[in-house]
């Protein structure tokens, strides 16, 4: 049900943070994280996941396989 940010890839640029419609993104020690319980994969908000689209580094915001895909209720 969520995207995650690969910490080693994150430049800490903050481009994703204001784009998230769920305010699921936060900063800690210079890199950004996604709260999985808040992430909806932008379903119902936008055609594409905003963190992925805004991130300057490829393959940094990725689907977190630890969670099942988000289902709009």
């Amino acid at each position, binding site marked *: 049900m969520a995207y995650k940010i690969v910490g080693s*890839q994150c*430049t*800490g*640029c*903050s*481009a994703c943070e*204001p*784009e998230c419609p769920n305010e699921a993104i936060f900063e800690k020690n*210079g890199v950004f994280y996604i709260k999985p319980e808040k992430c909806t994969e932008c379903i119902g908000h*936008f*055609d*594409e996941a*905003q963190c992925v*689209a*805004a991130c*300057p*580094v490829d393959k940094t915001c990725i689907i977190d396989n630890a969670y099942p895909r988000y289902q709009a209720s």
Partner: protein
Amino acid sequence: MEAALENATPNLSRLKPITGIKVEIAGQPEASGCGTTGGEGKASCGTSDGPDDMSPEIWEKVKNHPCYSEEAHHHYARMHVAVAPACNIQCNYCNRKYDCSNESRPGVVSQKLTPDQAVKKVIAVASEIPQMTVLGIAGPGDALASPQKTFETFRQLQEQAPDIKLCLSTNGLMLPEYVDEICKYNIDHVTITINMIDAEVGEKIYPWIFYNHKRYYGREAAQILTDRQMLGLEMLTARGVLTKINSVLIPGINDQHLYEVNRAVKSRGAFLHNIMPLISEAEHGTVFGLTGQRGPSAQELKDVQDACMGGANLMRHCRQCRADAVGLLGEDRSDEFTLDQIEQMDVVYDLEKRRSYQEKVELERQAQHDAKHDALAAHGGVDDGMKVLVAVATTGGGKVNEHFGHATEFQIFELTAASATFVGHRRVDLYCQGGFGEDEQLPSIVNAINDCHAVLVAKIGACPRDELKAAGIEPVDAYAHEFIEKAALTWFADYRGRVASGEITHIARGDAAIRQGAFMAA
């Protein structure tokens, strides 16, 4: 180093001969130098000369802005604060993962700041360096992609340091949205990076943009970007905000196209056009670095700049500085103002002290201005077409006042019998390391100023002196601590005398390389 020079090997065949550019030498003394390099219309002098050819309102805006006035850049300092890390477009010459404190180029920064930290830093620097007159937000991403952070910093500064000029630099994508905000905080200088006005060219420079919650790619992305840039520029012009257009010269991609960009931005009221060389090395990890896209040689850069001179005021003194640079252009004192150090500083913002210091700086700027005019009056003759470049070692103040071995850059002046014009600068590796000249550094310095007939210095050792002579570059220390234009014109009169008497023969010089690698702030 070898590889860098090979990359910079000139390919002049790529550059078409430039036609239709009117070059004329001003005859009237009232033109006071400004027309001497002129082309059509407003000529190039807006940036290099004084109040002679600008309205008083514009002169007031640029006279102590080192980025907008070539004359000011010898005397006044600027600083950038890195509060805007996010960006909304991808450029092929930029890799957002790269961060190295030894590297000096746009987009690079060592320490990101919050608006509160940035304001504290500005106040600290303004107290330590009273000739610091300009605060810019230039990233390390795009100033308008982090609008809250950018404008919060400006808001606080406007209250706490009202004498500091505020400016920002942007790729222009979000510019139309923020023109009102820009005016609200009295930001009267905005820089827009415009590398193309044609999406066919743009798609080779910008792989994607992020706009209106969507990623756009290729030609569609480039079209949106250019439309937004042109709209933003027109809006700023309509509001009376001075604009500087930065263009990165990318040989084979936009070198010919920049003439069209120049016309387009000038027709929309751009105040300055700054054409800069591509910085591209494989180790930077940029797309252009990895594909081996080379930067221009010194001559290629100058050819495009010369051809664009008639279009808009042309800036040639840009140092492509870091997003957290502090000091005079070409110098970076950011190491002295890290967050930890600022915490220790006892800072009082003394407006009066800054004013009285700047009055002295203003006298020095005026003295350099007058010395240039005196030298032109004394040595200026009728232009007979003989034109040479000279390299100058200076620590600022507009004087020949640096030891050859201490120079990390040389300023380049173009001389004719009737003019001395700043045309650029070349970064070099320091020749002197710990008191000893490094002979292996000399060839790289010679390469960087290989298009010059002479190098004017305060002092120079015997060894480099002989080697420069052997390379055909005359080392000159006879004018130490004199104003640059006066020294250069006096030397040139002497040079012409020696040519006329048959003592020496005037031989054209070759091309020079633009230094690409890491720059150690010395």
